[in-house]
């Protein structure tokens, strides 16, 4: 198993595309043209006849003028400067970069779904509504909840929605004035505290105990009748299961607070344990993490929010609902209102439905088992070379530290990340969670083969060994040298701000 195998390294085209690619604007030549349209036989009214002068533009928008051939060449060359899951392992901790099944691509391009107008009457959208209702039921089964909204467009939107549900619940009990604080662990994702502020609550931070869990005594000291609730990720961002969750839930419920489950790390517990059974009242899911919908270079995602029965009347709407004669959109009784222009990122939700049907209940459990197995195997392979932040069985990801490496060889977590690129891998998440020094957060996911995991572990170990044993830290410090660009000066980007081609041209 530990024999070095060549499998899984991405040393292909993206890492060879080293020539500078000009912007599309620099390919532009006056009069060049790619677009073509239907022949309409309509009267050829002019802009002067159609737009009153006061509103009419005097010059057309300066867009690139390129042929279709040049357009294809430019954007194809850009793809050769881009790493992706389809190319190789992407062990970015907390991001669950698993392989995205191609069956979902095919389903997501069926005109019977993609060409449906969101304001079409329910008689034209029965297939869509049935699919979304089924998806809601599946998500409730997975989380142990009673009802869900599919509107939030991403995890952060789900968080804000969940917190507004928390507010609406306390409001209905006449307690929203008093309940000002939401408790968040110091290991939480940055979106948690930002969402708390945006929903009008105040953040109360609770520390982490020696085992990497929530410090229960510190939590009890924070809890009072001014607490609206707590936001938790379980497993936590340290990749550890919060084994005192029952005590935490009891303590929060005892003071009248609600428990919010941040679904970022749900990939560890599918079919193993459900947030609802742990005592959570509100759960958001990141379908682009757990359910294999592709992340699109930064989005789109979808962040459905599932809730217990008491909170269902407050859900955003209108919601896809099963009726006596079919399906329709209905507004929950005490809805907090809309959180999306239409019904959520429907085509992403369609991909989610496909993923869930392909896996089924047993398949989902297998997903989590293998994800956890892979993370633990990697952690054990890296033991002795990297520091283990909290030495317990990890869940879907492991957090190791380059702290000793930094002391002994001057190599930072960032250096390790950059050198890994030269060895053909996307780096892990670095410097998160904030409470671990020189953190490297590695999430291999269930879709990487043992061969790829072995190659990945070997690469991690090679980076450390070449600086410790061979005394050669220079390679890592100089890395990456085989990528389309070398180490990027991000301080300069903020100092000399150039965010459009026109700003560049003006310099």
């Amino acid at each position, binding site marked *: *198993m530990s024999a070095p195998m060549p499998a899984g390294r991405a040393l292909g085209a*993206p890492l060879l595309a080293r020539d500078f690619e000009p912007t*599309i604007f620099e390919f532009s030549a006056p009069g060049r*043209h790619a*677009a073509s*349209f*239907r022949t309409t036989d*309509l*009267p*050829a009214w002019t*802009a002067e006849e159609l*737009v009153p002068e006061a*509103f*009419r533009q005097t010059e*057309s*928008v300066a867009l690139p*003028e390129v042929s279709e051939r040049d357009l294809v060449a430019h954007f*194809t060359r850009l793809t050769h*400067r*881009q790493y992706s899951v389809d190319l190789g392992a992407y062990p*970015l901790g907390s991001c669950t*970069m698993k392989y*995205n099944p191609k*069956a979902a691509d095919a389903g997501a391009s069926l005109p019977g*779904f993609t060409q*449906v*107008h969101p*304001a*079409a*009457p329910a008689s034209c959208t029965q297939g869509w509504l049935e699919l979304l209702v089924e998806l809601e039921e599946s998500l409730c089964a997975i989380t142990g909840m009673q009802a869900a909204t599919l509107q939030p467009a*991403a995890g*952060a939107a789900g968080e804000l929605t969940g*917190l*507004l549900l928390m507010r609406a619940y306390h409001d209905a009990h006449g307690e929203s004035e008093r309940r000002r604080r939401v408790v968040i662990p110091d290991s939480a994702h*940055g979106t948690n505290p*930002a969402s708390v502020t*945006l929903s*009008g609550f105040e*953040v109360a931070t609770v520390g982490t105990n020696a085992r990497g869990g929530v410090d229960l005594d510190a939590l009890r000291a924070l809890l009072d009748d001014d607490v609206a609730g707590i936001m938790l990720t379980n497993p936590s961002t340290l990749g550890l*299961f919060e084994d005192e969750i029952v005590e935490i839930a009891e303590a929060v419920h005892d003071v009248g607070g609600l428990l919010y489950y941040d679904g970022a790390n749900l990939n560890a517990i599918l*079919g193993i344990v459900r947030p609802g059974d742990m005592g959570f009242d509100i759960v958001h899911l990141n379908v*682009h993490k757990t359910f294999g919908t*592709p*992340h*699109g270079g*930064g*989005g*789109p995602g979808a962040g459905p929010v599932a809730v217990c029965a008491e909170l269902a009347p407050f859900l955003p709407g209108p919601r896809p609902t099963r009726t006596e004669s079919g399906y329709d959109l209905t507004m929950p009784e005490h809805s*907090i209102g809309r*959180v999306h*222009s239409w*019904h959520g990122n429907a085509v992403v939700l369609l991909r989610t439905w496909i993923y869930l049907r392909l896996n089924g209940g*047993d398949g989902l459990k297998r997903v989590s088992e293998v994800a956890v197995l892979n993370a633990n195997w990697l952690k054990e392979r890296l033991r002795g070379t990297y520091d283990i932040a909290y030495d317990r069985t990890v869940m879907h990801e492991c957090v190791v530290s380059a702290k000793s490496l930094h002391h002994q060889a001057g190599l930072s977590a960032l250096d390790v990340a950059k050198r890994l690129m030269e060895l053909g891998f996307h*780096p892990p998440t670095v410097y998160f969670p904030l409470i671990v020094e020189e953190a490297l957060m590695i999430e291999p996911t269930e879709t990487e083969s043992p061969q790829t995991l072995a190659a990945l572990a070997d690469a991690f170990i090679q980076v450390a060994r070449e600086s410790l044993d061979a005394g050669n830290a220079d390679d890592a410090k100089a890395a990456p040298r085989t*990528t389309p660009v070398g*180490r990027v*000066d*991000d301080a*300069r980007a903020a100092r000399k*701000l150039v965010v459009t081609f026109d700003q560049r041209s003006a310099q």
Partner: protein
Amino acid sequence: MLAFLGLEDLDDLFAEIPEALRLAGGLDLPPAMSEPDVAWRLDDLASRNRPCGRDLVCFAGAGSYDHEIPAVVRSLASRSEFLTAYTPYQPEVSQGVLQAIFEYQTMIARLSGLDVANASLYDGAASLVEAVNLAVVATGRPRVLCSQAVHPHWRQQLETFSRGSGNEIDTVPLSAGVTSWNEVVGGGPFAAVVVAAPNFLGCLEDIGAARAIADHFGARLIVCFDPVSAGLLRPPGELGADVVVGEGQPFGTALGFGGPYLGLFACRLADVRRIPGRIVGETLDREGRHAYVMTLRAREQDIRRERASSNVCTNQTLMAVTAAIQLSWLGPKGLREVALGCARATRYTREALCRIDGVQLLTSAPVLREFAVGTPVAPEKLIERLVEDGFLAGVPIRPGFEGTAYEGGLLVAATEKRTRAEIDDFAAAFERAVR
């Protein structure tokens, strides 16, 4: 692998989870289906939808438009390097997505007539919410003036999120289909003035008049624009907008039952450090070569945490890349052709429908790509009847317009895809349906 870990069973990996919490009996979900079985089920579900196309010719808009999406855009935008990458945290292996976003930002800044644009937000409504938050933070004032002709779903979303932020939204009523600014008497101080141009009812709005109101209160002017109409209209930035937001779906993204779409967001350089979400900037690598990187990161939630003014993390990058490809395909001439095509088809449709007895325009201000009509039959009923004839007639004007002259009207849009023959047939069917 288990042996290497000194374990016997996969179950041992979960020993730290209290036994009482463990799910007995597995998930209550249907068993796994094979790929072809899933495909058949999907076909079955899809057959119970009525997609827009030859069998249901689309005259519905309201923020979601049936525009041409060429093969080249579908092909490039679905390349797996764009589709299956994460947020470009590691710039050295993410130059493809970063450069595409940089090009997108340039195009959106030019379309809006402003200095800078971000890397996208969820949809038009989300962009408006973020624009209002920017203005509130910048001015320290919680109140906002918002035209009633801003998309009702966007206004509903402003209301939803105001419950958390504590923002107060004052709605300015309409007259003849455009915002009646002279009904704003006193009040304030306001953080922002919000206007849609063209507005939800299709009417062109006088951005200069909105600018005057904003100046009066020392407020930011937020303009919700239609990026397609930008092919014919003066850019909002040129007319005094401080922040321009819009729905970018028309640039290469399918109707898709309402998502994923594309939130456009542009502002002045003076506000760049308050811009929500990701923004890509240019820099150099160690060898002095051009490189792109996510910049001004200190604004963002993962660094600023509870002091961040936005919680946006995942956005709609793939749709932004798609828009950059579609806009490059269009070019200046193509964008103008789309805008002109929409305006021509809309005018032809409007004239044809308004010749029908009992059908009349509900607004008198100039319209461009969409219009509101009153009909002798309730719009919901009319739409159902016309679906039978193969037309999606439009969108009913209901929530957000209660008690106004526009309530119960029908909002009709015709894009550059509509032909004279389709519109003639639609008008004939419409005439039968209102009888």
